[in-house]
């Protein structure tokens, strides 16, 4: 976890620099729906400390972060921590639900394709994976709303509430990552099934089902676990778009909005939360890897 410190510093600094460099004056944006005069806008900019030099602003920003103070939003005046705490559960719910869809469909399709390799099923799975990987979420989202909410009327189109609101966005989000997982699962299964020890097992008369579940999956799933861990980052990113299409609250919409009005404290806070999430998921992936693979375990000892 100590290794996280330089990462957080780098990300925090990059975020600061990026927001500093994109053109625009938050004071001008703040007062852009008022009758404020040019002089009053300049006065507000000074009040916000935006007239200070880059090193001064950067130093103040880092010093605050060091004290664990994410600051207040320039626009809402509320503490960034409170804002994030409000939006985070929605994004986490969506990302986890999307993850479940990814894992179940990705692994399922991958296994089916590998077992029936060369058959029409295999071709169908690789077709579906390609569609999943290459379809942008904003499009598949609108398509899903049209089909399942408007034509079939199975689920609500937008918004949030109970589980029925979660199904469509989670499915759309999860499906976008499932293709990659299915591909890796299939490739890895095919590779393992060609290994000599499987031949040996088969020659000893062990049934195909038993071979698959007892010997092949255990080894073949390892690369899939890695990919699933990586896909989580992708899911967090995809959640941004999914939240917009399905009009759900969440960090994604928050960060887009905040970037668009140069609300540095909120953007920095959200990005840091994203980094920490991603690091935690990677840690979890490593632990899972260790649990699944005896070789890594003995090596680490």
């Amino acid at each position: 976890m100590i290794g996280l410190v330089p990462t957080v510093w780098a990300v925090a600094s990059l975020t600061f620099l990026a927001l500093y460099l994109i053109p625009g004056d938050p004071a001008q944006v703040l007062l852009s729906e008022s009758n404020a005069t040019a002089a009053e806008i300049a006065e507000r900019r000074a009040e916000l400390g935006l007239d200070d030099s880059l090193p001064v602003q950067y130093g103040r920003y880092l010093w605050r972060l060091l004290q664990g103070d994410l600051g207040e939003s320039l626009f809402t005046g509320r503490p960034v921590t409170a804002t994030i705490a409000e939006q985070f559960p929605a994004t986490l719910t969506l990302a986890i639900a999307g993850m479940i869809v990814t894992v179940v469909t990705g692994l399922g399709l991958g296994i089916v394709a590998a077992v029936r390799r060369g058959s029409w099923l295999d071709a169908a799975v690789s077709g579906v994976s390609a569609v999943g990987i290459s379809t942008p979420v904003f499009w598949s989202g609108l398509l899903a709303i049209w089909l399942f909410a408007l034509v079939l009327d199975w689920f609500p189109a937008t918004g949030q509430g109970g589980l029925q609101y979660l199904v469509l966005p989670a499915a759309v989000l999860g499906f976008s990552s499932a293709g990659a997982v299915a591909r890796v699962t299939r490739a890895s299964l095919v590779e393992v099934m060609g290994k000599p020890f499987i031949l040996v097992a088969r020659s000893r008369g062990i049934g195909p089902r038993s071979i698959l579940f007892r010997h092949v999956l255990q080894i073949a799933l390892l690369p899939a676990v890695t990919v699933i861990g990586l896909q989580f980052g992708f899911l967090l990113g995809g959640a941004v778009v999914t939240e917009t299409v399905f009009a759900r609250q969440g960090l994604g919409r928050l960060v887009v909005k905040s970037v668009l009005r140069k609300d540095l404290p909120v953007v920095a806070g959200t990005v840091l939360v994203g980094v920490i999430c991603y690091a935690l998921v990677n840690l979890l992936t490593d632990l899972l890897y260790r649990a699944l693979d005896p070789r890594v375990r003995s090596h680490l000892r």
Partner: protein
Amino acid sequence: MVRRKRLLLGILVAVIALLPSLAACQAGDAEPQKLVYGLTLIPSGIDPHIHASSELGIPLSNVYDTLVYLDPETGEFVPGLATEWSVSEDGLVYTFTLRKGVVFHDGTRFDAQAVKFNLDRVVDPATGSQKARYMLGKLDRVEVVGDHSVTIRLAAPYAPLLDSLSQVYLGMASPAAVDKWGKAEYQFHQVGTGPFKFVEYIPGDHLTLARNPKYKWGPELLRQVDSSVDEIEFRFYEDPSTRTIALESEQAQIMGEIPPQDAGRIDQAAGLALHPVAIPGQPLQFFFNLSRPPTDELAVRRALMYATDRETIVETIFGSWSPVASGPLSRVTLGYVSDFEGRYLHDVSRAQELLEEAGWMDSDGDRMREKDQRQLVIELYHMGWGMVPEVVQMIENDWAAVGAQVNAHLVSYPAALEAARAGDHNVIPFNLFGTDPAQLGSFYTSGGGFNFSHVQDAELDELLGLAAASQDLPQRLELYRQAQTKIMEQALVLPIRDYVNLNASSSRVQGLRFDARGWFPLLSEVQLED
């Protein structure tokens, strides 16, 4: 093996256990006499004293009463929380007699002390007001004269004061509630005296209001009926393509800002009704920058006005739903004059004549004009709002037809504002909404916050300054007429279309009306038929 399984099982159980509890956090209750109202933008904050968006006023103008109201039918100010008022001869002292027996939603009494508390809060720099603070002119002080009498003293006359006081941004909040929750949290616990009580706000998700059964002091335009809805939930539909869908699938019963391409369908649909509302203020318009060549030349600005086929642009993009704009104010705004309706009509040969007279010729045969080795290139900045990109595209074609090349820059909102202030643009779209013509001062005076034309004209400064201070309405309107004439003669702005908010509702919704600002619904009378 066993340990491994246990770990996996543990993770699975944790995930499954986590899911419903997270989902439950957001589960709303389903109640029968409830109406869902679709908002189109998530405001950055919703405290009307602090924040500026029009969107916040849609729910909150039904939570707060104002001292006076602007009657949308007559354009007259009518009593609200103040039953009577008088203005001193010099326009510096406003005295209000307050209504008795008015009670905030938290049970505390409304009185003169509350008025002082609210206005003091708005102008306090620590409040960080983004709009309200700039609606009071040069406020000197607020004095409590008696329990139900209050005086507002100005340092300089400010004619739009009553108009300001009739807006939700200067609505009267419960001092007890403001003190209790503090600056940042009060917006989640707002307490007014209006026909609806604030229940809860979950940012980005929903805002709920409940009917205030004690409401008896409202003006005629906010009267309540027994059968009006008990609860209104506001939800957010930021993506325009989801708005009509939400109405059609009955997820929402009222929705604002329907895209024009969906409006016709809704107008024809059996279960839906369209409510177009004209918005007072400025039209969709493009400012010409006087400080950057080639738009520093009057001939070029005029030529570009003549080159623009506004009729076709409006008809193609906005359909029959909005009128073509002709001047700096939209038709439904106080101070609008029809003087410019026949001016700058589409006339390609007139545009070409003007450019040639000014020395802009196409000497190398590339269909683009040049003068003194300079190409006729127009830098156009815009932020991709609403249908602006489509409008920009048509303008590009229109201007190319007279030999002017447009460089369009689609940039973020802060970047566009920054470019406009720095003067990097030749042309930029921007506008504000509002019922009082004093808004022109922000755009066309040399010290205005939105002087995106970079105009420095002593005569305009004087006209607009006098108009904002004048207590004599006919004189005021005459000053605004002169200012607008100057603005159009100098071709500072290219007006395109008057804003019309295309609201839509389920036809079960009855009694939906809108206030004088056009954006804000008067919800006290709204009923939901079975």
